Structures are given as C-alpha cells and as structure tokens.
C-alpha cells in the first residue's frame, strides 16, 4: 500500500519556493500520438495496418513489415513487470528534485515491451496495467499500476506528478451563480479538496443556490465578477497565491444565432463572460499559478474550462454562444502554452446541451450539474486536457474527427 499523503504543513516563510522544473519535453511528431491519447487518458499504441504488429516506441515505419500505415488504436494495457530499477541520482533537474524514482520494463500482452514509470505498489513479476498520462511537460508517458486498486493508490508520488488530484488542494470555482456551482463544490470537497473558494458576482441580487453554498463547510464565497477586471485583479491579489486548481464555470448563454437576434447585445455578453472572462482570469491568476508549479503537496496543478462542444463546430440554434466558445477554446490553447513552463495543465471539459433554463426547448440527453462535476473530478484525477462530458459531446467529437466539413454540413443543414 501507499503511504497516505498528509495535508501539507503551513509553509515556512523563510524557505524559498521550489522553482518549477519539467521532465524532458522533446518528442518526434510520431511520438506525439502518445501525447494526444494521454490528453484524453487513453492507452493507445500504433498498430500496423498491414500486418497488425503493435509498435513501441512510436515510429514512422512498422518494425515488422516496414509499412508506414501505423494508426493509433486503443490497446490492451495489461502486461507483466519484468524488471524494476530505482533512479537515485539524475542530472535532470526535474528528476533530481524527485528521487528516488522507480522505473521498469513491462512486457505487454499486446506484444512490445516498454520502459515506463512504476507505481510503488508494483513488484517485479507482477501483473500490471499501463496507463498513458501527461507528465508535467505535457507529454504522454506510460506508467505501470497494480492490476487491482491498492489503498491510497493515488497518493503515490510518481502518480501524483501525472495527475491533478484535488486532494489537499485549494480550488477556485469562478461563478457561484451557475447551476453547477454547488455540485462542483460538493464533488471537489468529496474528492479531498482542502478548501473551495467560490466567486460571487453581483452580491446585490439574490440567487437560488446561495444558501446551499454558504452552508457547505470549507466553502468560502468571495466577490468575483469575470466581466469586471478590477474585481478579478482584487481576488487574485487575495487568493492568487493559494489557488491550486481554478475551475472557470462562468458562462453566459442565450439561444439564438444571427437573424433572430438582430443585434449584438447578447453576443457581447457572451464574449465578455465566455472569452474575455477567461482572459481576465488568466492574466490575473495565471502568472502566480505558473510560478507555483512545484510548491509542494498543494502546488498549482490545473486550470479547468467548461466549454460547449460546439466550440468545435457551430450549432446555429446557439450560433453566437458557440462562436464565443470557439474563441475561448482557441484562447485556452494559448493559455496552455503560457502555463506549460510551470507544469500547470489546462483541462477543457466539453458538454453538449445542459439541463437549464436556456436549453428548455432542446430534447434530451442534456448534461446535468452532477455529470459536469463528476467529469471535472475524474478528469483532474487522470490529469487530462480534453474531457467529453455526456453522449452528445462524445458523439460530436467522434464525428468531428472523422470529417469536420461533413459535421459542419450536418449541423447547419436544416430540413431542406
């Protein structure tokens, strides 16, 4: 079993903070396939389209028949740990700070043997399962886990480096007025978050779930309006140095595209909240989070955006809202680049229509607040960058991957 992670002690004010360092981040273009799969937590390897041989490490031509058709496919992650070694000294700054570090070799049932990180509960000769996760440099790496779960398994120091587990961390949820705020706060506390800050805009008008939030232990309501730069800066001044996970759930959504609305009033609100809100938060909270990427047990680890899956391809019934989400998605990629030196990851959680006042006329399935909360926590625990929440989002991204133009035509088709 793994030693349970203790809540971090109060910081010694005379001790300098550790500077974030990263594991080696250079990969070939072929090897980036592993990273793309890790972004969604999928264990994928290249399978030769001609002879079926499973490849590792990633390559440009099949190791068996030299075919260059090597598509990435979900792969059986089971195998046997045939060798283990412990690195006790490393010239690499990242690993130097984190020794001892277990690595080993796993012979996969699918064929190849791989060198990987090894969970502390895996003994040589044991059956293991491999996971593919993003490391702090944002690259896919493999780790061997025990075949079955073990006590406190997530607290393994090597595994924690590959995740953004809320346990012992302090979380900011940016908008208390959203339907999903109480479910998010609850799920994060249940996942072991030390404290949940919830931003509250326009305290001068009531909203239904305020009492619920205020009654939760370890939840603090603080003034925050993502459309007001001063308010965002003021809150960052207050809690920016202890925000380990930021979940941006602020959202403005109204039905309508172009002609039906005939003006830019709601569109402006959508951009103010969904796009510029993200920008204001990023400018105010991002630099401090990036600098705290190696700040002990409760270091800054993740930035979460809740987006519409129609950021990928427009839904004309919500055309303007979708456009604002496309802008936010694009900005999230820039944010990812800027947070990367700190090892802080950006996770986008994409949903289809949500169960709320603004999707009354949309038939189910619709995403509930609890479903969003579960997806966020699960995604943090797996250290993901892309999460597809609900059937609509999963279906849509699949079709988008097959052919974005076909999907566009389907979504914009009408009856004609």
């Amino acid at each position, binding site marked *: 079993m793994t030693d349970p992670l203790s809540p971090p002690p109060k910081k010694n004010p005379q001790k300098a903070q550790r500077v974030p360092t990263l594991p080696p981040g250079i990969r070939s273009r072929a090897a980036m396939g592993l990273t793309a799969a890790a972004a969604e937590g999928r264990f994928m390897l290249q399978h030769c389209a001609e002879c079926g041989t499973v490849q590792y490490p990633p390559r440009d031509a099949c190791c068996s028949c030299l075919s260059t058709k090597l598509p990435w496919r979900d792969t059986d992650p089971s195998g046997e740990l045939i060798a283990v070694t412990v690195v006790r000294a490393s010239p690499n700054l990242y690993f130097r700070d984190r020794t001892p570090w277990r690595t080993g070799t796993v012979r996969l049932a699918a064929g190849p043997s791989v060198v990987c990180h090894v969970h502390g509960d895996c003994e040589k000769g044991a059956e293991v399962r491999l996971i593919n996760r993003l490391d702090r440099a944002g690259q896919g790496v493999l780790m061997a886990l025990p075949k079955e779960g073990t006590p406190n398994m997530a607290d393994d120091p090597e595994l924690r480096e590959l995740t953004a587990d809320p346990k012992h961390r302090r979380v900011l949820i940016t908008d208390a007025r959203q339907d999903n705020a109480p479910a998010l706060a609850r799920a994060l506390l249940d996942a072991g978050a030390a404290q949940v800050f919830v931003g509250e805009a*326009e305290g001068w*008008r*009531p909203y239904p779930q305020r009492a619920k939030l205020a009654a939760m232990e370890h939840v603090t309501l603080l003034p925050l309006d993502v459309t007001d730069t*001063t308010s965002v800066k003021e809150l960052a001044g207050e809690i920016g140095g202890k925000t380990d996970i930021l979940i941006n759930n602020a959202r403005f959504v109204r039905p309508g595209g172009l002609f039906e609305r005939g003006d830019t009033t709601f569109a402006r609100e959508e951009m103010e909240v969904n796009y510029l809100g993200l920008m204001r938060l990023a400018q105010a909270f991002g630099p401090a989070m990036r600098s705290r990427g190696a700040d002990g047990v409760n270091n800054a680890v993740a930035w979460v955006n809740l987006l519409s899956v129609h950021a990928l391809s427009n839904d004309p019934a919500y055309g303007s809202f979708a456009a604002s989400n496309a802008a936010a998605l694009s900005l999230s990629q820039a944010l990812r680049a800027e947070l990367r030196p700190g090892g802080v990851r950006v996770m986008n959680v994409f949903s289809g229509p949500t169960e709320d*006042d603004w999707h009354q006329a949309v038939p189910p399935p619709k995403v509930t607040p609890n479903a969003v909360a579960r997806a966020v926590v699960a995604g943090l625990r797996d250290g993901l960058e892309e999460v597809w929440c609900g059937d609509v989002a999963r279906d849509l991204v699949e079709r988008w991957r097959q052919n974005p133009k076909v999907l566009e035509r389907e979504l914009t088709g009408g009856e004609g």
Partner: protein
Amino acid sequence: MSVLTDLAAALAGGAVEVVDLTHTLDPDFPVIVLPPEFGQCARFRMEEVSAYDHRGPSWKWHNISMSEHTGTHFDAPVHWVSGRDVANGAVDEIPPEAFVGPVCVIDCSEGAAEDEDFELTVEAIEAWEAGHGPIPADAWVLMRTDWSKRSGAEYLNMREDGAHSPGPTPDAIRFLIEERHIRGFGTETVGTDAGQGMHYSPPFPAHYYLHGAGKYGLQCLKGLDRLPATGAILMAAPLKIRNGTGSPLRVLALVPKEGA
C-alpha cells in the same frame, strides 16, 4: 449680469453651496434587473489602457462602458414607448435650458422607512403643498426616501415576487404632470417607478406618463436629505448622445445656505 455676479460672490462666500447628488460610477453598483430573456442594463465597466507604463509611458487612461441607464442617470422621453414620438425627445435634442431649474423635494423618508413599498400619493403631495406652497410650473420634483443610504442587496430589495422599493402612484404622477406641469420627476431608487411598479395600471406609470408628456426622469439620486424642500436649483445635463434615451450624469444642486 449682476445676478450672476451676485451668484459668483455667493458661491465664493459660501452663501450658496454646491451639493452633489450623484453616486460614484462603480462596477458593483446595482442596475435595474429585467427578466433574463431580455437584454439587460450594462453595468459600469472600466478597462485600463495604460498607467504610466509600457502601454503609455506618461499617461493613464481607461476605456469605460455602461448603459445609458447605469448609475445616477437621466431618462429622456424617447426612453419609453409612450414618448417615442415626442418632439425633441432624445437627450441630444432637449433644449439646454431644461437642464437647469428649480427643484421641490417631497420628503417621504419616514414613510419609506416603515414601508418598503411606500407610495407617493396625490394626498401626500397636497399635504406637502400645504406646508411649502404650490409646486411651481416647470420645476423638478424629487421624491426623497433616503433609499440612497441603502447598499448591497437592500438597495434593489429583490425578492421572488420582484423588487420592493417606494415610488409614485399613477394618480400622483398624473397630478404632477397635468395639474402642476412639472419639468421632471426624480428618485433615489433604481427607477422613477416603485419596485412593484409593473403591477400598476398602466405598468410603470411614472415612465409611461412622464415620458408620454415629454417630461424627464432622474433616478439613483443620492443624498436628497441635503436639499431644502424648496429654493434650490438643480443642474442635471445628460451627455449629448445622438438619439440617446438617457445618460449617466453628474447631478448638482445650488443650495442657499441657511442663515446666509
């Protein structure tokens, strides 16, 4: 113009005081809240463009944005459907002499303290006139409630059945317009109408009757307790916005100092 020379001397000597009746434009100041399927009144916002830094080494300035009806603001006749065809009904068309004039202040602060839905009635106006004389034609009439001393959620006082704040009855507004020929009507609350004003007939009677008759509105005024019942001069000039339906503005009053 000896009258202005006298005024200058009175201002310099303190015999006439300049009183500010304006709330600070603040991003967190309440605005009127409509059902969410309607477009909303934009809150005041300020974005820094530079602050003596790499974005502009010697100067600091902001871009600001807001609704025509944010903060302490002026309502022009074209704001309401009843005033859509009023001549010179937009802020840029209103003759400038309308922006400076006499003001009567009806103190409703006691009633508003006891009843958040307090109504200004014809009887209350007549009772006020019994003490202060008739309201002169072309005067501003302000309803003092001390509501501007409230802050936060207390200000809009929004509940599930809507906002609760004092305002005039339909008859009181018609009386002021038809019998007293006022220039405009102003309040310390978020609108010239009561919080529950949509339930009168017609809904929002102050807006409906005032603007239909080409009269003006002032709302979110502050500190009306600093004005005398009569004898002050109000200066309320909205921004000159083409076809504007209203405007945030600085509302000032010239008040003769007691005993001076």
